[in-house]
């Protein structure tokens, strides 16, 4: 399948008074057209930053981004504005990502005005089209965001992202703020749109069951680094990285026949500021040995298309 987006050794550091904060540290991946890459991790692991850097909403520190065979790492401001037509984002919080003083029709039509597409009538027609597409009744066209509930607001967010017919969308926790029954409606919508328009997604979330449901491949991040990456179902069948194992054991399963595993992950995320040259997961890992203290592990392919960043991955999993 055709490659749509390729990211190589991407790094994003933020300067803080205490030193460099390594938000994203050496992340590489490829996404094919029409597929979804799920990015999971705890708060502060750099997953949202990754999404924003890929869209060039944040400047990167180092690395390379290739979109449709075109290197967009250091394109000009003007070119990056043109690029936004192809790459869009859906934000987490449908409450704060919409301007409260614009009505639904203005909110959805806004991207069309920015890019000077259609005349006034054509724009209104396109807005209605988009509203139909995301399942937002036309009677809400002149309602304001505060009059709508979270699910409908998130549909506005989806419609806005789709307005310019992009090829690629970063979904940054689009369902985290929603109730389960509404969450399921939005997930179905995103899947339907992907099938209809051959969209490509990066789906950032902390919810493993959601990411399993929607993704082709999954990237597990821990403190800015890639811990594990493989095909979605494979990750749940054969988690190799100790962090992934711990993460999976921590999810409460809504099934009373499910045998509860003991808590595997103790402690909390350590600081991402000026990390030492050792495995970032060291402090929480129960398999840690001396090797782990002597240097950061490399990202290696342990099985075809299954990548893990861990010194002892073969010993732990008897590979």
């Amino acid at each position, binding site marked *: 399948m055709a490659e749509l987006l390729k990211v190589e050794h991407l790094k994003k550091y933020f300067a803080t008074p205490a030193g460099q904060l390594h938000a994203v540290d050496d992340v590489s991946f490829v996404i094919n057209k029409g597929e979804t890459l799920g990015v999971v991790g705890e708060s502060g692991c750099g997953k949202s930053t990754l999404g924003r850097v890929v869209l060039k909403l944040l400047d990167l520190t180092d690395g390379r981004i290739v979109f449709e065979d075109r290197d967009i790492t250091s394109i000009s401001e003007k070119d990056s504005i043109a690029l936004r037509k192809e790459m869009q984002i859906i934000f987490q919080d449908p409450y704060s990502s919409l301007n409260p003083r614009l009505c639904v029709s203005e909110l959805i039509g806004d991207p069309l005005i920015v890019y000077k597409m259609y005349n006034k009538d054509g724009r209104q027609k396109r807005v209605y089209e988009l509203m139909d597409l995301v399942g937002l009744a036309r009677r809400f066209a002149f309602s304001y965001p505060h009059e709508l509930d979270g699910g409908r607001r998130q549909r506005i967010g989806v419609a806005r992202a789709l307005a310019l017919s992009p090829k690629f969308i970063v979904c940054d926790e689009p369902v985290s703020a929603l109730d389960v029954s509404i969450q399921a409606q939005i997930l179905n919508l995103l899947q339907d749109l992907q099938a209809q328009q051959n969209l490509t997604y990066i789906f950032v979330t902390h919810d493993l069951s959601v990411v399993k449901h929607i993704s082709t491949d999954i990237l597990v991040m821990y403190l800015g680094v890639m811990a594990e990456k493989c095909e979605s179902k494979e990750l749940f069948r054969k988690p190799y990285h100790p962090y992934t194992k711990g993460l999976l054991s921590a*999810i*409460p399963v809504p*099934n009373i026949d499910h045998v509860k595993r003991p808590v595997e992950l103790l402690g909390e995320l350590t600081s991402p500021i000026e990390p030492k040259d050792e495995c970032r997961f060291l402090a929480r890992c129960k398999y840690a040995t001396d090797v782990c203290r002597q240097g950061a592990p490399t990202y290696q392919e342990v099985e075809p298309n299954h990548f893990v960043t861990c010194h002892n991955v073969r010993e732990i999993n008897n590979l």
Partner: protein
Amino acid sequence: MSLLEIKGLTIHYETRESVISAVNGLDLSIDESKTLGLVGETGAGKTTTALGVMRLVPDPPGKILGGEILFEGKDLLKATDNEIRKIRGNDISMIFQDPMTALNPIIRIGDQIAEVIQLHGNCSKTEAMVRSLKMLETVGIQPERSIEYPHQFSGGMKQRVVIAMALACSPKLLIADEPTTALDVTIQAQVLELMNELKQQNKTSMLLITHDLGIVAETCDEVAIMYAGEIVEYGSLAQIFRNALHPYTIGLFGSIPSLDKDVDRLNPIQGLMPDPADLPEGCKFHERCNFIDEKCETGELETVEVEPGHFVRCLRVAKGEI
């Protein structure tokens, strides 16, 4: 005998424009050292129910219009302010959803815990402090940190402080309102385990409010599903998870992406929760229900016991049609 029994509890919020029916004739009971999970979506009335038990519903606009809340046989709704103040924090205590706002930012955490103990424990300040340090140790925080302020703790640690505070006087009933919603999964697992351990040690009963059926499966003995201010289904863990009967409960289970099975498409419940200021007649769920018949729109609903201990509030289930 059950520790807590709620009968016909009705709570409305009355504003100038409208009357919001948050809780409508709710019945519940919790036995000693048992955990009841109260499950529902935003706006179902879960938190209002909890606040009702604690007599903390803000008035105005909140009004407890009727019903009984029997705690060890005594009606809390008839208790005087003084009596209820003695019960709160001592016999019944509460863990709030957001540990960031539940703590006072300008008081050291050791002092915050000691305050509860001193208030209810009839003891000196020094003794309260000693017990406060012990509580911190119980929840896995080094006692040396008692002189620190809330902002110096992470979210998971703050929730541990809140738990220490809630359990400081060994309450008989603990109300936990979404205690782990604001936390990451790995931290959530640690906090849930801690709560379970302490609950078993002290034989505390718990009312656990949550929207996560996974947490319910792991921690509860009984489950009540709440929708638009009513309990629509109530039963033991096995009855609800193996034999859910109410269309809303079935819809909830269909909405969760599963980790065990591979499902291509989710089966969400259509539509949205009705506006609590303008609830539909008849069954409150009928607008979203797949099994609707005419009587659902107008008929009087009753809660029916379909098998011992398993209650359902649905006309069609009552008639044996579903």
